[in-house]
């Protein structure tokens, strides 16, 4: 059984459908890129998958023994107030909360997980820094480390590279690719079709027309050809 099975899904807000009749599946180890124009409903799709926004119609099935508290999430914009006092360590370890149920304090296991993920993201030296004083790229790494504390299986990333410079963007993509190679299933929203085609195994294109398939199929499809032909490949 697939990790995630979507059947005839319609989503939107207050019964205003944005997307209708979506069908796709994600298997273990896949790297799915969701592309589409601004406002086409990519973030809404992700929130619906996570259960933050109720679907209007259809089914979302997490399978293969995956529980809802085993999913990591990197939001598009973490609307954290500019002056929120939080250290990197506090932010990263808070990713463990979902698994902890009612137990009040972090134990050795959670602390180890957090430490390992700080190291994985190369931000161990920032451990005691204040989150609000970090650069955009560093903040993104911190949030990715937090997401990794929440999961060892599936990561949902909503535009992880928005606002980052080309060098940091490349690093970020490499990092995500590495996580995928380590066996974590990736569902990523991206504006960058070129990168999507380079790194992903599957593409979901939403908007006016909907496409779902492997990236090879996408490159051959009319929709894919059209968007890839546009200069830069981005939107």
């Amino acid at each position: 059984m697939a990790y995630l099975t979507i059947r005839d899904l319609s989503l939107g807000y207050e019964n205003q459908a944005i997307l209708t009749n979506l069908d796709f599946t994600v298997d273990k180890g896949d790297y799915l890129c969701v592309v589409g124009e601004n406002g086409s409903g990519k973030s809404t799709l992700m929130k619906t998958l996570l259960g933050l926004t109720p679907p209007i119609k259809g089914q979302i099935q997490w399978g293969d023994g995956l529980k809802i508290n085993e999913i990591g999430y990197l939001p598009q914009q973490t609307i954290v107030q500019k002056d929120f006092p939080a250290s990197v360590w506090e932010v990263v370890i808070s990713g463990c909360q979902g698994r902890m149920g009612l137990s009040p304090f972090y134990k050795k296991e959670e602390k180890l997980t957090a430490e390992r993920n700080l190291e994985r993201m190369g931000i161990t030296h920032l451990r005691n820094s204040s989150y609000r004083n970090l650069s955009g790229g560093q903040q993104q790494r911190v949030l990715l480390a937090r997401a990794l504390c929440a999961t060892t299986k599936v990561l949902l990333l909503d535009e992880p590279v928005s606002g980052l410079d080309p060098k940091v963007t490349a690093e970020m993509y490499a990092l995500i690719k590495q996580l995928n190679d380590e066996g974590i299933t990736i569902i990523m929203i991206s504006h960058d079709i070129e990168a999507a085609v380079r790194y992903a195994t599957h593409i979901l294109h939403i908007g006016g027309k909907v496409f779902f398939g492997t990236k090879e199929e996408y490159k051959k499809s009319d929709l894919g050809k059209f968007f890839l032909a546009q200069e830069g490949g981005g939107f």
Partner: protein
Amino acid sequence: MFAQLVEYLQYPFVRYAIIVGVLIALCSSLLGVTLVLKRFSFIGDGLSHVAFGALAIASVLNLSNNMLLVLPITVISAVLLLRNGQNTRIKGDAAIAMISVGALAFGYLIMNVFSTSSNLSGDVCSTLFGSTSILTLTSGQVWGCAILSVCVIAFFVLFYNKIFAVTFDENFAMATGVKAERYNLMIAVVIAVIIVLAMNLVGALLISALVVFPALSAMRIYSSFLKVTICSAVLSVICALVGILISILAGTPVGSTIVAVDVLMFGICYLCGMVRGR
């Protein structure tokens, strides 16, 4: 002056006042950080007005222990306000404004029409701004206050990590399986309890100051959640202690003296923050 203080401290009611004052200041500062960061401070303000209205009803009914009425009404309002505030932000804001002003108006109206007291404006003034009433506390009230305070502190310590998670990023918390709504509800209830507690000390209109100022002051100086929380608790206790002592010695009203010290402390912390170059 010191001798005078020592003499005062021999009276049990003065010691009660200090114990209660410190406990209330501690409790109200703990959730202050969350309140400020979640932009819930307006809920605190609205609730204090509701508590005033409830107190007006209680005093007209001549209840022996008016907490029995004020506490449930405030807690229920907290739950309702939070429900409302979550769905649609603007409507929530308006609802709070309506409820708080409405409660204030009705509270005063009720007191005015039904009160049998000869000193009505004095009564109103003391419920709004607090009074020397803290010096007339009985040991029973002190115990009640102490028990509630211990509950609030225990709640805060046990749920500290969860409170951080839902305050920092509610969506992430919910997406990864934290029952954020449940914790929001608990926070709202605890806020209501704190407000009712603090009304004894500083009166309905000044409660927000007690909740918000220590948090804002601490946020000027520190930049991790734990340090800010501890610092705001310490600052709050110090300010309350200093405020109560000043008010005993100088005969000023307790509530406004404490708040004045809080404001002063904020000024100092603000300057410290600037000096440290932020």
